[in-house]
């Protein structure tokens, strides 16, 4: 191949051939992108496909009869809080319920996947200086952007294709399944266009992702307000959101195929704009420049602890906003949850089990608090793993070369994990309490009760954080994968353990099994104390490991 390429390269443009000078090298860059994403990309595609397909399957099991579904349609479709979270309900078939439950959310996950792919292979590489090296080879100006777009489009097409294959297998009508699959895939294409533009506008990967998340949040809000608005409200707002187009396609209620043209138009417009911008700007430059920061550090930034909080505050704020939003809406949905679940004996049983009690509203709220606890554990795990990220990226070295000991450094990020988990749980409790309390007319008492219920999850979340710290201390090479595996297993045991009739021994492994089921359950301090002790023990092991091993 090189023998062929060499004489051609000397003559310059001849080498670029039919692809045009701007696109030379796209093929090689696309293969590189697929090679680098060979694990992440299939994981996202698999996750989204499985999520939607299993939902369709589960709904068929939970609501086998038309009568059971009719009750759900009245209660769920009529509940503004649920319409806010999930969208409007078009029809009463299993397919319509699947679209309602996971149409918007599959589109959100698809959008997140797309944003990560596009930004990573454009701005991310540019910021890291890799595109400079690539650009010095016989590679066209537009080739990296094109390769990123091809990767993202391929991923979304794969999701659509897989759903086309799996949804009919669950018993859903074929034409509706295809419309639904295409709607989810097309929504990802719309965000491909949006992310392509954002990657040209911002001057860094972080800024580009920020713009994309902003657009995604706005799309969710516009859709949510449009969907939850009553008859006289601004329901047209749903039409302004790429996330709303999934439900507006009405896949299982006489598909409106032409709606699919909207996301495709966004893709075309976005890609066109991105190419135009990329042809004009310099490498490394953005249209929205970085703002300058302070020339000297404020008094607040004075030690490893304040540095750890400074480094992690953005992520924590993002989590807190997301938690507040989702738990407020989920809490508001608690009123009337009884009639919503009334149609499905299986679902009622599920909530009773997760919530650990028979009173359905309390069971639902307690199940929400379990989810909040698992979420806080997830946040705490990511906060602890920041230690390892700092270490591998070479940032621990200058820090530890100052008068900061390893223990103090470890404790600084542990503090972020503990405070962050507590803040997130308090936020979840407050939001759920207010959401529910405002609807039943007693916000104050409900908020107080739910904050207490949420905080009961804290020790269990901290056990997971402690395990992550122990892994960072003892198994630095494998700690990231191992910590997330531990969290994944705990989530699995808590959500599916009883259903799968796992042995009690296995269930007891999860710290959340030992948390009192609040609100409504009986409080006992003993298990909480034991959990605190376990969290302390794991953390101590981790810090001791951190002190003994090589850094870097």
């Amino acid at each position, binding site marked *: 191949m090189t023998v062929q390429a060499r004489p051609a390269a000397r003559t310059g443009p001849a080498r670029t051939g039919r692809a045009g000078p701007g696109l030379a090298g796209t093929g090689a860059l696309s293969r590189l992108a697929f090679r680098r994403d060979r694990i992440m990309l299939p994981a996202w595609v698999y996750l989204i496909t499985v999520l939607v397909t299993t939902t369709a399957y589960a709904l068929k099991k939970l609501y086998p009869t038309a009568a059971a579904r009719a009750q759900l349609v009245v209660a769920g479709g009529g509940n503004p809080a649920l319409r806010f979270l999930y969208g409007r309900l078009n029809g009463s078939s299993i397919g319509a319920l699947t679209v309602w439950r996971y149409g918007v959310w599959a589109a959100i996950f698809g959008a997140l996947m797309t944003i990560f792919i596009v930004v990573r292979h454009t701005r991310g590489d540019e910021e890291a200086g890799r595109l400079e090296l690539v650009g010095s080879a016989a590679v066209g100006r537009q080739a990296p952007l094109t390769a990123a777009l091809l990767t993202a489009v391929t991923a979304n097409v794969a999701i659509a294709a897989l759903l086309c294959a799996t949804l009919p297998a669950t018993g859903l009508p074929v034409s509706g399944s295809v419309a639904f699959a295409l709607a989810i895939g097309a929504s990802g294409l719309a965000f491909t266009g949006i992310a392509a533009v954002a990657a040209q506008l911002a001057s860094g990967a972080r800024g580009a992702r920020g713009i994309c998340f902003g657009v995604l949040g706005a799309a969710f809000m516009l859709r949510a307000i449009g969907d939850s608005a009553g008859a006289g409200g601004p329901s047209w707002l749903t039409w302004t959101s790429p996330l709303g187009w999934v439900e507006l396609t009405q896949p299982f209620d006489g598909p409106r195929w032409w709606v699919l043209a909207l996301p495709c138009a966004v893709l075309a417009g976005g890609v066109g704009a991105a190419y135009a911008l990329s042809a004009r700007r310099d490498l490394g430059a953005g249209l929205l420049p970085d703002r300058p920061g302070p020339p000297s550090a404020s008094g607040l930034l004075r030690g490893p602890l304040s540095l750890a909080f400074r*480094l992690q505050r953005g992520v924590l704020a993002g989590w807190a906003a997301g938690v507040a939003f989702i738990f407020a809406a989920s809490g508001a949905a608690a009123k009337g949850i009884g009639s919503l679940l009334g149609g499905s004996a299986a679902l009622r049983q599920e909530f009773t089990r997760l919530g650990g009690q028979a009173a359905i509203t309390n069971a639902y709220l307690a199940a929400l608090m379990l989810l909040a606890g698992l979420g806080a554990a997830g946040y705490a795990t990511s906060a602890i793993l920041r230690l390892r990220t700092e270490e591998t990226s*070479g940032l621990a070295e200058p820090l*530890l070369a100052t008068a*900061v000991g390893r223990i103090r450094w470890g404790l600084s990020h542990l503090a972020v994990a503990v405070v962050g988990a507590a803040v997130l749980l308090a936020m979840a409790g407050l939001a759920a309490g207010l959401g529910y309390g405002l609807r039943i007319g007693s916000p104050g008492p409900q908020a107080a009760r739910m904050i207490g219920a949420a905080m009961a999850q804290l020790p269990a979340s901290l056990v997971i954080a402690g395990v992550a710290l122990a892994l960072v201390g003892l198994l630095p090479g494998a700690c990231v994968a191992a910590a997330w595996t531990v969290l994944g297993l705990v989530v699995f045991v808590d959500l599916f353990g009883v259903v799968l009739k796992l042995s009690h021994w296995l269930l007891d492994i999860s710290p959340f099994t030992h948390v009192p089921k609040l609100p409504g359950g009986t409080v006992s301090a003993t298990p909480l104390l034991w959990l605190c002790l376990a969290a302390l023990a794991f953390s101590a092991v981790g810090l001791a490991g951190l002190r003994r091993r090589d850094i870097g």
Partner: protein
Amino acid sequence: MANAIEVRALRKSFGRTQALDGLDLTVRTGEVHAFLGPNGAGKTTTIRILLGLLRKDGGEASLLGGDPWRDAVRLHARLAYVPGDVTLWPGLTGGEIIDLLARLRGPQSVIDPKRKDALIERFALDPTKKARAYSKGNRQKVALIAALASDAELLLFDEPTAGLDPLMEAAFRECVNSERHDGRTVLLSSHILAEAEALSDRVTIIRDGRAAETGTLAELRHLTRTTVEAELAGPVSLDGLPGVHAVEIRGTRLHCEVDPPALNDLLARLTAVGVRDLVCRPPTLEELFLRHYSAERTGPGASA
């Protein structure tokens, strides 16, 4: 206390790779010591052990009279370090990082704002930029300013000028020279020999995890030859002259290397022909270094 750094028979391995294999290194208090070696010789590993980031497998290492692993925090309050590949927190500005690194060195460590501002101006750094927007050279400057503005008694530089332009390199040299006058100790690892030559009092050459040579530049030059370049009035033959090496004659131009005792005989031979121009200079560290390694490589048992 005489020596700022005292390393004896230091050993460290990573898996099967023997990074340090009995290294000796002595840095006297108040001197600028160059630590020279090719990539992968073990320079960074040595510095990381001295910083207590890595645990030594064997041998002895002492830093400012303390144990670098056990007394890390106490010792770090008295030193400043510039890594070879500087990474900075992308969301913080250069100015914030300089202040932060100073504060992390402990409450008793003070950073003189006037000194800091002078250094920022000297190195032409924009302290309001976020670190993610800095080039490699600018990241290097942030770390250098943080170290030079501190009142640390020991400065550890790991290839400090990689990424700096010649103007900034000159600024760095001036700063190190003024540090020497202030009585600070500097350990400077480098593979840029001109840098060591311009700055250092003493040199240790490391190769394959062992000190190959150590001493002042003058001491090391004893081992070496003088380079002679001459423009002559006519052709010359140096045949049969002992102690003259690497002879290159192009017309009337001569280039050769001479053992110091043979210098007199050579000059006699040249003046007999007639000298129009003559340059005699001590070998650069570069030449010394090249010879040192090529000799070892071609020597017996150097199969690797």
